[in-house]
């Protein structure tokens, strides 16, 4: 496959590109779903193809094909250059690339149990068992499923990169829905998106779906008669680590994507409230807030050996002691921003998508408090967990998030269960109110397998190490 990528790169250069790279990707995806004790679907998808980028002037041209002959690879390279050439009719400043050490390497993430080798019957029994238990304990609709991705990619660049990687990912999810007179309530486990990582089937076994099925079904039913989360303009809010993963993803991760900051995503995903002139000065949150983007974290969903430009994975500080200090970047965006090197955050979703800046593992560094301590320290507040809805403006500033479940916290103790908890805020004001941060014992590497970005649309797999946190003076209970 290196030969095909090489042929594409050489053809792109011959057709006028000053830089080119090509990826051949072979991806397998298996998913199975169960509903109410019955298997509903098993899908096994395979795709293999080549995608080549060519840089001419101020724009990238990209062409992808599933035809894996050398002749087709050469044609793809030429096409990519022709497309880049057409871009020159609406030009900007020439795009430069930050330097990156050229290497030839192989990388793959370790797995204990190859997920594709686990018998289908065993996987099916797991899902059937979990959904049956949920139904037995009150769920009207009980869903469970898993996904496995096994991706091998070969990268060649005109600078001499020759890197192949095999990345195996898997995870699972389940949820129980209870139908009331005029509403539905749902409880998910381990979270709304499940839990995913760059690990083998051992991750799914550790989730113990069956062992948590009864609890979430009972909670879904209990939520139907739980009191509504009250509305407060300002209250103490304790957020569980799964919801914190979403908070980080939406209000930090996307805000620090350099292509957004530069305006390259303005028409669709949006821009960012962050201004590069304020990096190293702007206060993003309280002193407790430390965020890194780290693609080297073992087993986290956003981990890899090299990004799709051949930049080796490495940790990048994003927020340090509450001050914004870093961005997620690629070679072209880093160059335009005057950064010395790429942040190694460029990936494409499949061979037929242009690689672009995506989150890696963007997460909080743990603090020193436990969830118990947060509750004990709260006189009047609310604890919420498990994301249910999420909405944020196009600058990643004004957000409103809803959770599946909440509890009153009164005088240091957990009280009544609450339904439909929502909270809203403005990013830096919200993060500035962070006053208690969970410790390492509660640090979870949450995986988000469905981050959407780009035109045409791409799905990114991102990781978010997070812990429970407490925030002060938050508006909760926003209703329609």
């Amino acid at each position, binding site marked *: 496959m290196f030969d095909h990528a090489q042929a594409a790169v050489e053809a792109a250069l011959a057709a006028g590109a000053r830089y080119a790279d090509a990826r051949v990707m072979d991806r397998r995806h298996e998913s199975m779903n169960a509903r109410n004790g019955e298997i509903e679907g098993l899908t096994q998808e395979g795709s293999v193809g080549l995608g080549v980028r060519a840089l001419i002037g101020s724009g*990238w041209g990209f062409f992808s094909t599933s035809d894996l002959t050398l002749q087709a690879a050469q044609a793809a390279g030429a096409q990519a250059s022709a497309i880049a050439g057409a871009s020159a009719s609406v030009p900007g400043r020439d795009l430069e690339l930050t330097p990156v050490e050229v290497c030839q390497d192989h990388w793959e993430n370790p797995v204990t149990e190859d997920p594709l080798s686990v018998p289908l019957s065993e996987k099916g029994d797991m899902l059937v068992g979990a959904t049956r238990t949920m139904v037995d304990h009150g769920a009207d609709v009980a869903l469970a499923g898993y996904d496995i991705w096994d991706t091998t990619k070969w990268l060649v660049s005109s600078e001499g990169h020759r890197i192949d990687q095999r990345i195996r990912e898997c995870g699972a999810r389940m949820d129980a829905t209870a*139908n009331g007179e005029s509403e539905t309530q749902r409880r998910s486990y381990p979270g709304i998106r499940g839990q995913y990582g760059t690990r083998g089937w051992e991750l799914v076994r550790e989730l113990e779906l069956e062992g948590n099925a009864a609890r979430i079904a009972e909670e879904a039913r209990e939520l139907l008669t739980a009191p509504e989360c009250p509305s407060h303009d300002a209250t103490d809010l304790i957020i569980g680590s799964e919801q914190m993963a979403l908070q980080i993803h939406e209000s930090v991760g996307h805000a620090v994507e350099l292509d957004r900051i530069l305006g390259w995503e303005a*028409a*669709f995903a949006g821009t960012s409230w962050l201004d590069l002139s304020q990096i190293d000065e702007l206060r993003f949150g309280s002193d407790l807030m430390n965020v890194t983007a780290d693609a080297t974290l073992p087993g986290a969903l956003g981990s890899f050996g090299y990004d799709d430009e051949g930049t080796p994975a490495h940790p990048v500080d994003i927020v340090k002691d509450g001050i914004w200090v870093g961005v997620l970047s690629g070679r072209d965006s880093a160059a335009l921003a005057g950064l010395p090197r790429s942040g190694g955050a460029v990936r494409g979703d499949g061979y037929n998508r242009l690689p672009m800046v995506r989150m890696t593992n963007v997460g909080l560094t743990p603090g020193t408090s436990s969830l118990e301590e947060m509750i004990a320290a709260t006189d009047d507040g609310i604890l919420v967990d498990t994301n249910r809805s999420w909405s944020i403006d196009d600058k990643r500033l004004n957000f409103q998030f809803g959770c599946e479940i909440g509890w009153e916290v009164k005088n240091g103790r957990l009280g009544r269960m609450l339904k439909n908890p929502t909270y809203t805020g403005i990013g830096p004001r919200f993060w500035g109110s962070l006053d208690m941060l969970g410790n390492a014992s509660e640090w979870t590497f949450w995986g988000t397998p469905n981050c959407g970005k780009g035109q045409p649309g791409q799905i990114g797999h991102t990781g978010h190490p997070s812990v429970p946190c407490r925030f002060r003076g938050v508006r909760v209970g926003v209703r329609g």
Partner: protein
Amino acid sequence: MSDQLLAVCERVLALVGTDAEAEVTISAGTETLTRFATSFIHQNVADAARRIHLRVALDGRVSEASANQTDDETLSRLVRSTIDAAALQPVDPGWPGLAPKAPVPPVEHWDEATASAEPSERAERVGAFVAAADGLETAGFCSTDGSEVAFANSAGQRLSGRSTTALLDGIARTGTADGSGRAASAELVDLDGSVVGAEATRRACDAADATDLEPGRYEGVLGPSCVVNILGFLAIYGFNGRAVDEGRSFARVGERQFDAGITLADDVAHPMSVGIGFDAEGTPKRHVELVREGVTTGLSHDRRTAKALGAESTGNAIAGAGPWGALPANLVLEAGSPSPDELVAGVGRGLLVTDFWYTRILDPRTQVVTGLTRNGVWLVEDGRIARPVTNMRFTQSFVEALGPDQVRGVGSDLTLVGGATFGTGAYVVPSLHLASWNFTGGAKG
């Protein structure tokens, strides 16, 4: 090409033989997109796409798989692995069987020139958009897609279809406001970059120097892209047969659940629609009425949900969307008489909204959705635009907003808007004037 694609389907069915029930879909074509930001083309892509999808059932044990190569070895492996996987599955009690042989109504949303459009043609339209902005910063894209699809199953159904879609969508930015312009058609020749760019520029300039407005309930005139957003949620979480089967839907057939001004159907044959005449299960699409003058009259079904509810498939199965259910991809909301300007003239005190952004559902039963406005919002008083306002957050039940006596006007501006149904369809809709919309916050919280 359709004969070639059908020939591949026949090869796959021949490999399956009499071992199982089987259905095969193969799609091939070119998807291209020219993207621009900060007023230059920064990403320009094209994909020669091909996909083969096989679903088999062995006495009700079901499995499906896909590949993107058509050589003998790949197809043999595809068939063998899919049948082997099905044999290991338990019987699926919901398996509805294959679609029977049935003719497809004539639907042809195809334009050869669009299917073979060159990058220079898209770049030309982008250039015209940028020029029309007269110095304002611009961003957006121009895309052309041409896809041919063939379907065959072991029940004798043989179908082929093809469709093209051209989109031009972008914003102009003043520094304090963005304004959007967009156009969609089956034919690239219909898209005029200077017209779309001028529309975006006018909106941006009219929205410049916006000021805040107090949250609260306001009348609203919602542009077509907002209406598409609303209908997408009603479709997925409401009219979807699966949502009804699971007790999560608001829809109750026979009840007056909407304003009398609402008549809604799924209709790929509408002259402004795009798409092909059959769904992912080989069921011919047809005109499916969902709401007539405010009364819910129908639901959308794939073969599974139809079996579960004792109905017939309405041809709304979407490839890969099985767990989601039946999703209408070609909704058409019947237009009214007043122009958008006349709708605005009928507002006492309310907001004119261009686009919605980041809408998410809080409860599928109540259809309460939260989201934000984008690309131009104006306060209207006594029928006149008073001033631009900053973006606002809303939390609103979409069903209630279109409920009885809640629709004060349905516009005449029937518009094709792409990217509907969370990206899988394109709807034809006008603007709406609604009696009440709940804005729960400003841009600053």
